[in-house]
């Protein structure tokens, strides 16, 4: 079986301790909390907050991000694709898909299909113009099962994939 976490830029041996988790907890609430705020709330020196954030970040274990709502970029159409691959390695197909800007997530999966991909576009017209042409040009795509998102009920993204 293929190793699950091969492309790691991070350090596999790095593990958070209790204070790391407390700092991370506050950063998940507010990624722009200053080192001083965090230090005061946890009653630890400011320098150790800075050092720990730096170490976690450098190990690839933590990323502090600004996430914009889909609507901030006028993304109003969200589509989930279940893709069956034929005659080509699913990983190569997934890498080709990942190149397309409209595709914001691509995963290799087990089951009846081999790839799960999520597409965000501004309007349906964009699918015909920009997206379907590019997808159809990728070799190895056998069948695509489409689900159009009508309502995102719940969305939590605070655990990410290895970079």
């Amino acid at each position, binding site marked *: 079986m*293929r190793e*699950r*976490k*091969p492309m790691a830029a*991070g350090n596999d041996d790095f593990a*958070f301790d209790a204070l790391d988790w407390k700092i*991370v907890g506050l*950063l*998940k609430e*507010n*990624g*722009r909390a200053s080192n001083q705020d965090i230090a005061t709330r946890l009653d630890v020196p400011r320098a150790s907050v800075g050092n720990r954030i730096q170490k976690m970040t450098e190990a690839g*274990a*933590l*990323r*502090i*991000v*600004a*996430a*914009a*709502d*889909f*609507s*901030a970029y*006028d*993304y*109003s159409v969200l589509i*989930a694709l*279940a893709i069956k691959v034929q005659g080509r390695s699913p990983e190569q197909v*997934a890498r080709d898909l990942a190149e397309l800007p409209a595709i*914001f*997530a*691509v*995963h*290799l*999966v*087990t*089951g*009846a299909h081999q790839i*799960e991909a999520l597409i*965000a576009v501004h*309007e349906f017209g964009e699918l015909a113009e920009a997206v379907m042409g590019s997808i159809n040009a990728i070799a190895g795509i056998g069948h695509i*099962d*489409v*689900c*159009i*998102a*009508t*309502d*995102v*009920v*719940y*969305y*939590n*993204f*605070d*655990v*990410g*994939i*290895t970079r």
Partner: protein
Amino acid sequence: MNRIDLDDIDRGLLDLLGEDARLSNRALARALGLAEGTVRTRIKRLTDRRLLRFTAITDHRQHGNPEFAFLRLRTDLNMAREISDTLAGYPQLRTVILTLGNFNILAIGLFDSREEIAAVTGDFLANIAGVLDVEVSIVTASIKYNERTAKL
């Protein structure tokens, strides 16, 4: 379609913060040629309107050796909304989307083990009234995931 009235300043901030969420207000002001107070006001307005959120993303390996899985559910159509609310309350399911298509609900979960996936698809989902069919796909490798845009 709800168009959001963001201007170039807002978009400039979103772009810069998307690259580095901890850039200081002063650095942002300098990069965009704005007053620091404007940057502060704009960021506050964007976060108050829930168009922007600053958070920390932890690598999945810090959570043990979890399994990501996509669950596609076929449900009684009249009950899809109610079922999706039930799923949203289940801690391992981190994204729940109502969909139009071959399936009615797409849920994405982060599980501690394959046994836990089996427990969720077996015991939990099977006992929710209106769930007709569940298709499970376990993620073996994540090729791309852009968390710069999300449903906030």
